[in-house]
């Protein structure tokens, strides 16, 4: 059960007041007439699905009804920060401290991979894949 801090109401409220609305910071192709099928498909259907740190949009649906962003660990379910629309996260998988603390592993190419199995140290070492 999440206890979520709404950056607009400035209060922690129970999960049931909110709805998860998927990956944050998605950008609609800026030049639709010159966007390829590949780019449209990527924009519409392909999402980051990390086993680790995720930036996602939530809406305070039965509260202030505003959208905002959450940085969350998708394995431990720890909420690391919440921030209003238009702002950027301060915590990302690229931050070594965070990565270590959250047990996240990043492969070549920046993908988050196996990580986040804190009970298994060996797999949390950084390896290239």
């Amino acid at each position, binding site marked *: 059960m999440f206890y979520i801090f709404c950056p607009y109401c400035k209060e922690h409220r129970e999960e049931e007041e909110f709805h998860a609305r998927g990956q944050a910071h998605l950008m609609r192709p800026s030049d639709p007439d010159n966007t390829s099928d590949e780019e449209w498909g990527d924009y519409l259907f392909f999402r980051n699905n990390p086993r680790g740190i995720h930036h*996602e949009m939530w809406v305070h649906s039965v509260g202030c009804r505003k959208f905002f962003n959450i940085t969350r660990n998708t394995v431990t379910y720890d909420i690391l920060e919440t921030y209003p629309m238009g702002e950027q996260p301060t915590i990302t998988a690229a931050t070594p401290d965070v990565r270590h603390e959250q047990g996240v592993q990043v492969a070549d190419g920046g993908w988050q*991979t196996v990580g986040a199995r804190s009970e298994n140290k060996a797999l949390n070492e950084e390896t290239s894949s």
Partner: protein
Amino acid sequence: MQRYSGFGLVKHALGHHENWERQWRNPEPKKRYDVIIVGGGGHGLATAYYLAKEFGVKNVAVVEKGWLGGGNTARNTTIVRSNYLWDEAGRLYNHSLDLWKGLSQDLNYNVMFSQRGVLNLGHTLQDMRDIQRRVHANRLNGIDSEVVTPQQIKEIEPQLDISSRARYPIMGASWQKSAGVARHDAVAWGFARGADALGVDLLQNTEVTGFKIRDGKVLGVHTNRGDIEANTVGCVAAGNSGVLANMAGIKLPLESHPLQALVSEPLKPILNTVTMSNHVHGYISQSDKGDLVIGAGIDGYLGYGQRGSYPTIEHTLQAIVEMFPMFSRVRMNRQWGGIVDTCPDACPILSKTKVKGLYFNCGWGTGGFKATPGSGHVFAASLAKGEMHPIAAPFSIDRFHTGALIDEHGAAGVAH
């Protein structure tokens, strides 16, 4: 392999059941195989079984990070049906249903496939229009399916509240008589035992941590037990498929969510069939042991923890009590979650990738148990021939760029 039979059961009873042979070996990984299957759930094990049995590829390894069938296969609510809307999906799920019918005999393993039927309820005019459309499409595709009235529903499942007092009165349903349930663990174990007997190595506690790829071709996998080589690798890893794909530099249009289920204390037989409702959002059946098996929708957020939130459980039980008021005081025994790989069009992905020799079979989301034998069969055919089987071909990853989606949200809904 020791074959199971009624006679064998009596013989072993006399020996106090102390001399049953192990169902499969626990081999050391070889350096090289013809095919590696990543993921030892039902789909992966079925793929290995059919590869060895029907396509003559016996030098196969199934690489599983935990124990066999411990993922969604062990966590699902075992509903088997094939009444999907579109031709492509109908063909795939009905191919599977055909295989279910002879599966216990084929595997010499009782998978307890019980064709007790499935009701998909309609509570609004639009529900009923959608049901009619789906049932007609099913019949054109040779899938057994009919529309039933509330009175017919009452005969099939007397405990359902069909009265007009209900908050969402039942207006009718689709009824697939040949649908039903099966025993999830037995399916994984039966395929595992059959595959092992044909020479497949089942490698448990072996986690794939990366792929060996050179010049765009897959050469094998890295695991926590060393590297294993093969020129054909099939990934069948359900909720973790995206993680594996990323290791190979591939993106999949999947999102992994927790999906929960729960069972009650065992009761005397009370339900005849499986009842599902998209509208009040819940479904229920009764296992042979007597527990009510209950489920509903996914938790809305991404999650790799095999658990979900309490509000989802509460909503699930509200739906059940809405349909079956008499269950309001039944006590729940256990609750758990699996990680389901949901796809934008609620259909699976069976596909080649841009890496030669690397295939994915995933995206089954909330409803792939029913497809276990069919998915394994067509995926095995594709791996053996290097060309996607005609039933599998429409489910390529390319559809998310060409736009040829197969939208099964209506038939999937809450209905797994």
